[in-house]
């Protein structure tokens, strides 16, 4: 359109139209604002980590740039093993989780199992990582629930066997703990992607060409799904390499993975270790970046080999075994989280519960009653901070996407992938730097700062969950509405938003769950003044009493679960008489 004629017409337009035209001026800036809000803290944090890594931290007398922190870092005994452990945990967890997800979806799409998997997802996603790890640890330990159930009558173990299951040197227990939580996350992302590529029909075509369901899916659908879930896969890779809470519970300790080592140094009373820890954080950052690069190369190789396999035409008709395996593994994932959680719930009502009793000697409400008084305040803080962070994330995310739809791809829009940086940047890599920065400008320990810190982690997930449904939504609905006389704002509020209500609410639920789970940002940025269920849970977990851990694990799970329940229930209620709305896009 010619700008000159736009001016000429504006005078004749009705007021609402003129307002609608003024909006874009704000809307146009949303991507830039979003990038600033997100990258500002991340960049400040990374700088705040980089400087001490090269010896600059005046508060500790570090005024000169030096390589001493790096020398100290590389002189750490066992650093090589720590790094190897982190890297192998990252690759093994990511690869197995992805393989498992592919197998589960390949075997279950179009069957009753698919609906079952779908239904199990949100409860699984609601379980915090640490709680799942605690639950798993109690399940599989030599004195754990499984051993208790079988002892001594079947095993003859009067005392638990002295075998290494947890904290094994190869990190298998940690990988297992990560996989059972990453599989649901990747499943969610995969299922969202499936809707956009018409996977159902592709699968039917493959079946009609004589392919077995699993092979047919892997050959016909997976190559198109993968690009859509690439970012989540990288996020899993980065997370598994830098996880702390799960590692503390399940990872080996001699030596621990790099991230645990870093936290230990950062918390060491010997403040000089700060320099070395910062150098380690930079190393962690580089490792993650390198691992993602290697994974990317792997993708190219696999794609090339895969094409040959696909074009080879093998049908894989006898895939009953593969399907059985998929069901078994999906079940194992679900059960290990669910049973672990049940174990913690039982603990929260347990009196004395010694080995080898399968259930506690006696039951008591004492643990719950003792915590009851102190539960309310953290719950309120958790909810208010979570709702605020999620709300802002939704606002910014929708603003960016709406901007993209209305004005097309623009430079700021194109750089939106930068939003995912916090997802793949290890938290310890920049949180301490961010804390110093916010303290310097004197806005730390305020409610707003805590919300902002949460936002940095919430927004990428919200955007991730929102972007694809938004972009693949049939734009002809919008065109139709516009031609019926509706301006862009009316289209947004009355057509696009209601039609996308399910993905929008799902994104909100994911965002809220992410917010609920934040420990370090809440503690560091809030200066400990904002007690959430998670900060309380972590503090109490350091006391090691499974009863208390059970109470808080349940609470930590209940809040996100409520969010997911609303995301499912609200549209179902609102659109209970609209069959066209029951299938999420």
């Amino acid at each position, binding site marked *: *359109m010619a700008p000159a004629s736009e001016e000429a017409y504006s005078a004749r337009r009705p007021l609402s139209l003129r307002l609608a035209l003024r909006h874009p001026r704000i809307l146009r800036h949303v991507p830039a604002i979003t990038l600033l809000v997100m990258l500002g803290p991340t960049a400040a944090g990374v700088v705040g980590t980089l400087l001490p890594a090269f010896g600059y931290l005046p508060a500790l007398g570090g005024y000169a740039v030096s390589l001493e922190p790096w020398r100290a870092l590389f002189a750490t005994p066992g650093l090589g093993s720590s790094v190897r452990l982190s890297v192998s945990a990252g690759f093994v967890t990511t690869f197995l989780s992805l393989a498992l997800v592919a197998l589960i979806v390949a075997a279950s799409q179009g069957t009753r199992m698919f609906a079952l998997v779908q239904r199990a997802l949100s409860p699984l996603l609601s379980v915090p990582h640490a709680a799942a790890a605690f639950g798993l640890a109690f399940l599989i330990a030599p004195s754990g629930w499984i051993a208790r159930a079988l002892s001594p009558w079947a095993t003859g173990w009067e005392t638990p066997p002295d075998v290494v299951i947890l904290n094994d040197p190869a990190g298998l227990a940690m990988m297992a703990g990560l996989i059972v939580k990453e599989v649901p996350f990747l499943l969610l992302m995969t299922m969202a992607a499936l809707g956009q590529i018409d996977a159902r029909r592709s699968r039917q075509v493959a079946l009609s060409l004589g392919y077995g369901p699993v092979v047919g899916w892997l050959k016909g659908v997976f190559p198109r799904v993968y690009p859509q879930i690439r970012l989540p896969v990288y996020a899993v890779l980065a997370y598994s390499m830098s996880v702390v809470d799960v590692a503390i519970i399940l990872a080996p300790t001699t030596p621990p993975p790099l991230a645990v080592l870093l936290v230990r140094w950062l918390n060491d009373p010997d403040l000089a270790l700060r320099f070395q820890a910062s150098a380690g954080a930079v190393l962690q950052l580089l490792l993650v970046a390198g691992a993602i690069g290697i994974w990317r190369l792997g993708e190219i190789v696999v794609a090339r080999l895969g094409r040959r396999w696909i074009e080879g035409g093998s049908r894989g008709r006898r895939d009953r075994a593969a399907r059985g395996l998929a069901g078994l593994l999906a079940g194992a994932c679900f059960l290990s989280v669910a049973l672990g959680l049940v174990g913690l719930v039982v603990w929260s009502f347990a009196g004395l519960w010694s080995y080898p009793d399968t259930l506690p000697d006696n039951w008591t409400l004492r643990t719950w009653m003792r915590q009851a008084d102190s539960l309310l305040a953290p719950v309120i803080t958790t909810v208010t901070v979570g709702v605020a962070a999620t709300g802002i994330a939704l606002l910014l995310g929708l603003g960016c996407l709406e901007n993209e739809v209305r004005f097309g791809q623009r430079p700021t829009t194109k750089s939106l992938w930068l939003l995912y940086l916090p997802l793949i940047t290890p938290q310890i890599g920049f949180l301490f730097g961010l804390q110093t920065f916010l303290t310097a400008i004197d806005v730390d320990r305020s409610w707003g700062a805590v919300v902002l810190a949460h936002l940095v982690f919430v927004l990428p997930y919200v955007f991730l969950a929102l972007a694809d449904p938004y972009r693949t939504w049939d734009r002809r609905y919008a065109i139709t509405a*516009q031609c019926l006389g509706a301006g862009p704002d009316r289209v947004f509020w009355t057509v696009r938003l209601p039609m996308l209500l399910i993905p929008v609410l799902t994104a909100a639920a994911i965002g809220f769950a992410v917010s609920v789970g934040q420990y370090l940002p809440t503690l560091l940025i809030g200066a400990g003044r904002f007690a959430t269920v998670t900060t309380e849970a972590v503090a109490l977990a350091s006391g090691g009493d499974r009863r208390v851990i059970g109470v808080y694990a349940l609470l930590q799970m209940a809040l996100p679960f409520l969010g997911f329940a609303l995301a499912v229930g609200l549209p179902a209620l609102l659109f209970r*008489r609209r069959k066209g709305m029951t299938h999420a896009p």
Partner: protein
Amino acid sequence: MTTRPATAPRDIAPDPGAGLAVENLRIALHGRELLRLTTRVTPGTVVTVMGPSGSGKSTLLAFVMGLTDPAFSVQGRVLLDGRNITGLPPQARRVGILFQDDLLFPHLSVGGNLAFALPRAIADRRERRTRIEEALSLADLAGFADRDPATLSGGQRARVALVRVLLSEPLALLLDEPFSKLDAGLRRQFREFVFARARDQGLPVLMVTHDREDAEAAGGPIITLGAPADWE
């Protein structure tokens, strides 16, 4: 890219301003010209645009609606009843469109879909309700206002979509392969219904289709756009 000259419509309506006019339209993509067109659709007639994929049919419709993809470079004017609407946003043009899918809003009832289209100027609630009921009866859909669109048959949905676009009081109607998804019997029936309503209301209709039968049934002039050079 070469463009074949479009067949110019033969009949020009007596009132030189009435109807939909596309003047000196030139559409190019990455510096290559896709099409060049001047045409006029008089009230109550249907101009059919035919041509293979990639010949610029959709871009032509987008231009008339005011939704040209910024990737295309476009010159030319579009006039509606003599008024230059080239610079107007889509919602202010009063150009209605029907796609091959009915695109009924799944979150609204049938009546809600129609109310969405009804101009705001009709403010009285009872009046709005009456207008909707009337429109539904005309399409043999009396009493359907509270129904969920998902529970309607294909033919019923197509009719609701037409009623919806007509309720928005357009001054021109665009049809983007509107009949291609309907089965043969229904197709003829619905086509006649659409053309009849357009004639009744004296709407200029610009139709894009692959189907010669549609073009013949329309009875108006046919513009055939050329294939892109790559196909030759």
